[in-house]
């Protein structure tokens, strides 16, 4: 069984990252935006794990960092959902275009 080369995995993570960015900029629904951010975070995780496995298989730093990122992502999701719920209570909508009062 031949090994999957590193470039394939990096290609996957890059695609995932830009799908995330695309989603963040084009979606108006905040839940979808949150999901896009999660995509970006996870693409980074893939990079961490892949570099760890291919370049320094004897170390665990990459795995270590990816676990950190997962933890942060969980906290960030909690905060973001709290913000979304509050926004819904005050605006009856979770569309970012409806919440643009904080301007000049």
């Amino acid at each position: 069984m031949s090994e999957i080369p590193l470039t394939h995995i990096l290609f996957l993570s890059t695609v995932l990252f830009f799908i995330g960015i695309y989603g963040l900029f084009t979606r108006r629904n905040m839940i979808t935006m949150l999901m896009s951010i999660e995509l970006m975070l996870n693409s980074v995780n893939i990079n961490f794990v892949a570099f760890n496995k291919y370049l320094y298989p004897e170390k665990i730093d990459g795995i270590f960092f990816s676990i950190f990122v997962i933890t942060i992502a969980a906290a960030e999701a909690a905060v973001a959902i709290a913000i979304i719920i509050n926004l819904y209570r005050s605006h009856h909508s979770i569309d970012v275009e409806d919440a643009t009062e904080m301007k000049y």
Partner: protein
Amino acid sequence: MSHPIYIALIPLIPLACFFVLGLFGRKYFTNSAGIIGTLGLLSSTLLSLVTAYEYFFVSGKVNAIYQKIEVVKYTWLEFSPGISIDMGILIDPITVMMLVVVSFVSLMVHLFSLGYMKGETRFATYYAFLGLFTFSMLGLVLSSNIFQIYLFWELGGVSSFLLIGFYFEKPSAVAASKKAFIVTRFADLGFLIGILVLSFYSHTLDFGVLIERLTTTNSPFLIAINAASFLGVSALTWGLLLVFIGGAGKSAMFPLHIWLPDAMEGPTPVSALIHAATMVVAGVFLVARLFPVFALSNPDALQIVMYTGAFSAFFAAVIACTQTDIKRVLAYSTMSQIGYMMFALGVSKYHGEDGLGYMGSMFHLFTHAFFKSLLFLGAGAVIHLVHSNEMKDMGGLRKLMPITHISFLVACLAIAGIPPFSGFFSKEEILMASFESNKLVYAIALLTSGLTAFYMFRLYFSIFWSKEADTHYAHHGEGTWSMKIPLILLAILAIVAGFAPISSLITADGNPIHSSIPFTFSILPVSLAIAGILLATRLFKTSNELPQRIAIQLGGIYNAAYHKFYIDEVYLFVTKKVLFNLVGKPAAWFDKNIVDGFMNLLAKLTTSLSELIKGFQSGKVQDYALYFFGGIAGLIIAFLYLWK
């Protein structure tokens, strides 16, 4: 002086009354405020009397000379070694005398106000202000530092402002209080500059050191201040004259007197306290305090003090003859009597028997405080009954108010200088002193004393005789006992104060003077006074046409005097026409167009710039995210390719 604490208490008790009544008076002491204030002042008065006894008869004398004793000295603000603003207590004969006078007259006024101000809505506030004033006046006379005296001086100005404007719903009272404040403040500017000049050359602010440095012949300080000159006049003369301007403003000397007649808008007991007996003599006190410097080092400045005083005395007496508002007559008479005190200082010298003028001035200050406050309180009682200040609304009141009548008569005799009332003795000393040193001033003084007798008896007859009283006053009664007791006490003092042994207690150099006025010297002034009284009796005892006819005969002079020689109009012309148009308006134009214009330009620039860039702050979260990522991308590019 072994117990300095109780001397410090003399001014502090009225201060405590001020705080208690000012902060809590309107809520908790609406009715008892008067009692609290009066009791506080009573304790201050008793302490003053104890201090006076201690000083004059027990511990004040060293080698038969009364000493200046610095009881307390606390360095408060030190600018440089030697120059500091201290809070101290300086005890010397004039301080002790002023303590007694101020606290006693203030006590009488507190007592009188119990009846006079009864039922006022701001009764407690009134007593709080009285307490503040008494504190500042007592602090002023006790000051040991020239800057400390300046602080209390201004505090006196403030409390005078508050009390003149006590009836602040009356526009005239508001105008009068503003006028008094601005005029005296203007004069105090002179005082402040004078202090700076004197302290700059003598390197001290302490009275004792200052006087010593500026009077010792050949001291380096005296040489320096005499050597420096401005416009051909030495710095010492300038300093003393500027200090005197401050004193002249407070003591209503010509031409800074214009605030005093208007100050009569305040409640009458206040006029008795502030504008007759105590605050207005602060200027005399100040000159007396610095008298050694005036007399020993700079007789030129003293000459100016003398001529200002003499002119004011005569000028005010002439105006007083024509006024119809009884309080204004008394105000001009106050100005005239203070003029007496000033020129008495002016004719005096420092040493021994030549210091007669100084002694006479302090003596006159002492007796004047009693009979003038008595006159004002009597006028207050009359106004309380009649509800008017105008002479034409009065007349024939002698039967309705016997006690007021008798005490007022006593005061009139005292101020006219009829023996054996107190004014006679003090006025004789002053006349004697001026006779010995300057015949012109003596002539003015004599003439003024005749005029004084005339206008005081014009006042007396217009109030108490002239015509039958309106019957509807009869049921009203003379006033409460709290109003009568001060009148009686002050009348007694107006009779006996002349026998006080001032000549052996208060002198310029501390040595007693054995003054003996020859009997023949008294004949001329007394007969002039009697002539004045007789003339007033002829003209005003019964109402007749004669005063009217004389007024018409005198024509222009009468009119000029009636309009106070148009001094107010001159001031108005100078301020409104000259100052406002030539200085005020250009300054206002500069401020509106140049200063404001520059600021407006800056604001406009900021606005237009922000118009351009405010679109970035759109409120859309995704825009912000775009800037963020764009920024990161930009930085990455910069680091990768440009910065290698």
